[in-house]
Structure formats: C-alpha cells, structure tokens
C-alpha cells in the first residue's frame, strides 16, 4: 500500500505542477491576481506531495520491502539502518526523486519567503519552476518509477554497492543536489525577466541570495564528494578530472561567475544581459551535469542506469530547456534596457575580469568533458581526456584569476586606482615573496612551479586580510574606532574576504599535496617495517572481524615518528554478502596533513600489499571549501539580502554619468 501511495502522491504533484505551469502565466498576462496567487498554494502543495512520495519510498527501504524493485536491487535486510536511509538515493530512481524533492522545496521556499517580490514576477518565476518540475516528474513516472513492484516478492535484496555503503552517501548527494537544483531559481528568475521584458538592479538583489545559497551547497557538496573519493577509493587522489566530477565543477564555475556579475548588476545596474545569460547557462550546466551522470553516457560510480530510454528523455529535457531558454534570450534580450559602460580599472572592471576568466576556464572544462563524447558519436574513436589536458588548460586560466583576486575588493566602484591598490598590497606581496623563497629553500629547486603556487596562495590570503585591515583601519586608527568600523562593515565585505581566503587555503592544499606527497607501494610480512620520510610503519599483523553485512580482514600497523610510537592504523578489506570487496583505508591526521594507508591483495608468498602515503596539508583542500561556504553564509546574512529588507532608496542617482 505504501509504494502505491508514494506513486499516487507523485502523480498528484505532477498534476499540481501542470496547473502551476499555466495558470500563473495567464494571470500575469491578464493581470488576474487570483490566478497569480494560485502559484503560491500549488508550490507549497507540490512540495508536500513530493515529500510524501519521498517519505513513502524511504519507508519501503527502512522496512526492507523487497516487493519494490528498487529496494530489491539496492538494499539488504542486514544493512545498518543509516544505509537503509541513504540507499534511497543510492540508485537512479531514488536519486531522481531526491532531485525533484529539492526542486519542489526551492519552489515552496520562493512561494513562502518571496513576499516582497512583485506579484507578476513571482508568478512567472513559480511557473517556470513548475515547467522544470513537470518535465522531471514525467521523466520519473514514465522512465524511472521508483515504486515499481515485483511479483512474487524476492526474499532478500541484492545489497547496495559497497562503495556506497558509507556516510559519504548521506552527505554528498543531498548537498550537491541542493546546489545543482538551487540554481534553477536563478534560471527561473532569468526566464521570468525575459518574459516580463523588464529587469533592474532590484532583480539582482532578489536573485543573489538564492544563487548564493545554491553556490554554498554546491561548494560543500563538491568538497565532500572529493573527500569521499579520497578516502574510499583507496589511492588518495582528491580530484581525478573525471567527467562526473567535471559535471559538478562546470555549474560551480558558472555559478561563481554569476554571483560576481550579480553584484555588478545590483550595485551599478550594469552587465544586465550578461547576468541573465549566466543565470541561464549556470542551470543549463547543472542540467548537462544531470544528463552526463544519469543518462549512462559515462560509465562511473555515479552512472546507476544505462537504460537508453532514460538518456534520450533527459536529452530531450536538456534540449527543450537549454534550447528554449537560449532562443528566448536571443529574442528578448535585445529588448532589455542596456546598462551603462564603465572604466576598465574599477571594481566593475575587476569583476568583469573575474567573469571572463571563470567562464573561459569553465569553457575549457566543458570542451574537455564533452569533446570525447562528441568525437565518439561522430567518428567512433574513443579517447580519454584526463588530468594532463586540464592541467594544461584550466590551470593556466585559473592562475591569472587568482593573481588578480586581491586587487578586486581594493578597487573603488566606477573609477579605481590600480597603483593605489598595488601599494596597499605591498605587504601581501612581501608575504608572498617570503613564502616563495621559503618554498625554494625547502623544495631545493625540485619543483620550480610549486613555490610560486604557495606564494600565490599566501598572496591571496594576505590580500584578503589586507582588504579587511584597510576597511577597518586597523593599525591606523584607535582600536575603539576599528571595532566600530568592523561592526559597521557590511557582512558581504566580510563574506568576500573569508571566501577568497578559503579559496587560497584550497590552493595551498592542492599545491602541497601534488608536489610533496610521498608514497610507498610495497608488500610486507608481519614484523616488517616500512619507512616514509619522518615516519615508520611496523606491520603488527592481521585480524578478522564480522560486520553487520560483511566480513573484514584488517591489517594493523604501529606508526612511529622519529622512533616514538604515535598510534596505530588499521586498514581493512571488506567482503560483502554479494561477494564484492572494498578497501577501507586508514587515515591519521597530523595537523593539516594526513598519513594514508590502504591494503592491497595478499601476495603469493603471504606478504600483504600496502599503499602508504604522506599527504602534506591535504586537509586544507576541503577546509578551504568549508571556509568558502562560511564566507557565503556571512554574505547571505547581509542585511541588504535579507528577505523583507527595505529597498535602498535613490539607487538611480548612482547611475554612471554617461
């Protein structure tokens, strides 16, 4: 009964979405307030029904109801309860249901909190949101029904892919989806503005918090996915330039550009058409990401299904929405009133530079991800575009972006003083030079680029601090004044500095790990000791354990630093009921660095294959992302963006003179 209820609730959500797709548009056209307000209720009800449907599916998993096909395929009665919850989205059907649940949630949030939006804009936004929702409800109901029954019901399930039986599955997908799907709001706002034919600075102020929230979730989601891959896949890589990872990076780059261009639009009423285009592109890239990951064109940990009908259906959704949106843009954008132009050396100019580099970098990722697919479709030749390609294209574009980053916040709006900004960055530059020198002293010329990478990271960090010092007047005015100024500083200024600082932390982590990781891959027998620079690992022996749905063989190692024991590490290989094995790596954190140990297979002579790594400052990669997210949160708490905050008056007086 429960699966049928869930199925029925989803059908009802589709019906509501169809109403919401049409009625508010008609209302906005004819000026009918009742029809426009209808969208509020339908958006809330839609969320209620999708949540009901999701709860029903969750109930099927928790109760191990193997008469439901997806539960049979992806669950097992002996699985720990937490994985019974998370396996709901550990498969194609359930993850799509999570996708629409979050889509409906965002729709409901706009309906509930968008009180100060003009009525027609809100109605159109919710309608566009519903177009997307309808398409995906149809996709689920027609091609990927999660409530499909099996008759007779199997006695036991086939278990979840062991790689997914991890706490990472509880965190990574929901965060990532909150990011992906969150950008749908910016998209809906853009389409609504194009239909409406009106756009102004206020539009940017309404869109920015939604974009910021989505960006925060996406940042954290990508970082958590990266950390999960790092410890689960057993060889300590944090980013593989795998197409499925690129699928999440592309909307992140475009979304980051969107955040920055929306600032220009809000403050200076410029870059309006570009911002609209970016909003469309960002969500389009989210859709492309969903297509890449879900359609089965790529084979990876993420491609749950390779049913061709699903691929074609998502491709159709993709063409419809991206093609439709871009056509609407081509048709309507020239009718929008252009914003002013500005001096190249100014805050706006710096933000344009940021957008230029971010979108170009995004473009190289798009090319590197889609080119192999296109080539295979056209010529049948199969190629793999891996890290070397992205190191040669993406990295050279990101370096100038980060070099320019500290300058941006120090330039004034309208007309900036580049020389003045450079002078104020002298200290930061000095810090960078010192770190480059220290880097060379430590590295001993082994890697020429690495010290410069570290210098760049410190330059950006010091630049972010300089920005705050300049704004609060620290070291120049009395401390009491500093406190006053710090309190009066807009939260978004703090947010900027914190987020930029976070990005530099990530960079620092990446540079250190890629250049100074040490690794040993050896076979050991009990009692033998392996040495990494600074650390010794003694293999104590093996032991066997039983988990709820697996048996594990663990290898215990005593770790010594300079002869002093600092702890033990135990990595294990788990064999699951279905017969497949995973490796659980062992991690030991030393400050921001980590020791990493994972077992390989037992060799002929009884020795145990072991991978050992020392990963210097590796935690900074993900901590940096957390700090970036905190920066976003600070910025989100800014008064200006708070829902219901009064519109600043007399914006128009700030128009450029020309």
């Amino acid at each position, binding site marked *: 009964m429960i699966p049928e209820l869930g199925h029925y609730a989803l059908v009802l959500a589709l019906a509501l979405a169809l109403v919401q797709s049409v009625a508010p548009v008609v209302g906005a056209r004819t000026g009918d307030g009742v029809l426009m307000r209808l969208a509020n209720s339908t958006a809330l009800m839609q969320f209620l029904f999708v949540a009901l449907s999701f709860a029903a599916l969750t109930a099927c998993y928790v109760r191990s109801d193997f008469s439901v096909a997806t539960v049979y395929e992806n669950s097992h009665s002996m699985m720990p309860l937490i994985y019974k919850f998370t396996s709901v989205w550990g498969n194609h059907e359930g993850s799509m249901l999570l996708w629409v649940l979050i889509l409906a949630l965002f729709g409901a949030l706009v309906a509930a909190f968008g009180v100060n939006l003009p009525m027609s804009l809100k109605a159109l936004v919710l309608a566009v949101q519903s177009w997307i929702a309808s398409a995906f409800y149809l996709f689920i109901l027609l091609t990927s029904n999660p409530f499909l029954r099996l008759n007779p019901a199997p006695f036991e399930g086939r278990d979840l892919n062991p*790689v997914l039986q991890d706490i990472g599955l509880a965190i990574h997908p929901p965060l990532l989806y909150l990011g992906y799907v969150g950008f749908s709001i910016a998209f809906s706002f853009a389409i609504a503005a194009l239909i409406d034919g009106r756009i102004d600075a206020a539009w940017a102020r309404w869109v920015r918090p939604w974009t910021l929230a989505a960006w925060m979730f996406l940042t954290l989601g990508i970082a958590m996915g990266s950390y999960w891959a790092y410890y689960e896949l057993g060889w300590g890589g944090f980013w593989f330039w795998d197409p499925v990872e690129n699928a999440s990076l592309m909307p992140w780059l475009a979304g980051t550009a969107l955040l920055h261009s929306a600032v220009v639009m809000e403050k200076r009423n410029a870059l309006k058409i570009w911002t609209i285009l970016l909003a469309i592109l960002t969500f389009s890239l989210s859709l492309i990401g969903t297509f890449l990951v879900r359609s089965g064109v790529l084979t990876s940990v993420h491609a749950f299904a390779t049913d061709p009908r699903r691929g074609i259906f998502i491709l159709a959704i993709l063409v419809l929405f991206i093609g439709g949106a871009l056509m609407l843009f081509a048709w309507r954008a020239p009718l929008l009133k252009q914003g002013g132009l500005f001096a*190249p050396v100014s805050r706006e100019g710096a933000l344009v530079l940021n957008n230029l580099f971010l979108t170009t970098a995004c473009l190289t990722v798009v090319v590197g991800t889609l080119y192999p697919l296109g080539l295979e479709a056209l010529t049948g030749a199969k190629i793999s575009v891996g890290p070397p390609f992205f190191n040669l294209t993406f990295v050279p574009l990101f370096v100038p972006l980060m070099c320019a980053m500290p300058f941006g916040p120090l330039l004034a709006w309208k007309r900036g003083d580049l020389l003045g900004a450079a002078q104020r960055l002298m200290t930061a530059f000095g810090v960078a030079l010192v770190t480059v020198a220290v880097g060379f002293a430590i590295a001993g010329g082994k890697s020429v680029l690495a010290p410069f990478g570290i210098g760049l990271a410190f330059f950006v960090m010091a630049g972010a601090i300089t920005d705050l010092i300049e704004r609060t007047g620290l070291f120049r005015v009395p401390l009491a004044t500093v406190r006053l100024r710090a309190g009066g500083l807009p939260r978004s200024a703090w947010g900027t500095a914190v987020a930029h600082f976070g990005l530099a932390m990530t960079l620092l982590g990446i540079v250190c790990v890629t250049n100074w990781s040490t690794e040993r891959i050896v076979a050991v027998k009990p009692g033998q000791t392996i040495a990494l620079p600074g650390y010794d690992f003694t293999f104590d022996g093996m032991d066997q354990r039983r988990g709820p749905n697996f048996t594990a063989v663990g290898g215990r190692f005593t770790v010594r630093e300079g002869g002093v024991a600092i702890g033990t590490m135990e990595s294990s290989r788990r064999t699951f009921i279905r017969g497949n094995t995973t490796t659980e790596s062992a991690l030991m954190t030393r400050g921001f660095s980590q020791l990493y140990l994972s077992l390989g*297979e037992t060799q002929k002579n009884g020795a145990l294959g072991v991978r050992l790594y020392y990963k210097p400052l590796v935690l900074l990669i993900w901590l940096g992302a957390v700090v970036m997210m905190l920066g976003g949160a600070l910025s989100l708490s800014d008064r200006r963006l708070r829902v219901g905050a009064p519109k600043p008056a007399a914006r128009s007086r700030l128009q450029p003179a020309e």
Partner: protein
Amino acid sequence: MTRKQRRLVLIGGCGVVLAAAVALVLSAMSNSIVFFRSPSEIATEQLAPGTRVRIGGLVEPGSVKRGDDLRISFKVTDGKHDIPVRYQGLVPDLFREGQGVVAEGVIEPGGLFQADTVLAKHDERYMPREVVEALKKSGRWKEGAIETAKGTAAR
C-alpha cells in the same frame, strides 16, 4: 576614456583571453589525449612503440603471473587477439581472471604493453563500456551473457 575606447578595451580583453584559451585547448588536445584501442586493433594497426594508449578486454584466464615487488603480468584478450601486459603495483579490488579490465600505458618495441594504470570494474554487475565495445567488435560479445550489465559503477 571615451565610450568607444572603453568598449574596445572590454572587447579586446575578452578576445585576448578567449584566444589564449583556444590556443591552450588546441595545444593540450594534440599532446595529452589518449586513444582507446582493442587488442585486435593493436595487433593489426602497428602503433609506433612508445605511443600512449588505453586498452580494454578480458583478463585471459590462466595468464596472470605474479612476481616479486608487486610485479604482475597478464594478457588482455578480446577473443581474437591478446596483448601481454606488465604492471607493477596493486591491482584494483575486482581485478580477476576472465573479467573486464582497462589498462593505460605504452607499447614497448617487443609488443609488450607496459601499463601504469590498471582499472577494473567496481561492481560485479558492471562491465566497462570500452570492454563491451571491444568484445562486440571481435564478435565475442553475447547478449545476455552478462544479463544484468545494466548495473553500474567503476573507476
């Protein structure tokens, strides 16, 4: 600066960055892309030694030999031809005889494939797509042989 000059600076700047990006992409394309070949294609095409390629097929049953220092050698076959592969390191959890495998590396003068990366499936329901294609080409693919190949997962 006049309006026209400002626009020129803006467009010029965009042009320069985009041109640089195109140049980077093109040069990276010519240097860093690895083609996929089936064992039969390698046997018939005569690639120059030292070419970097990805090969895929099944690990030939009975061909896996383990040596000291984590050295391992095996043959990758698509049923018609096979290639001897050598690798040093730990092979993935699901590396088995008779199962699908993808290896990346260079062909040495004697026709030996020196792999530096070995990927296997990560789930028993899954077969790497490249392997399926290679087997289809050589006529060894049986529909339904892996009836649940709609499964998943691998790196």
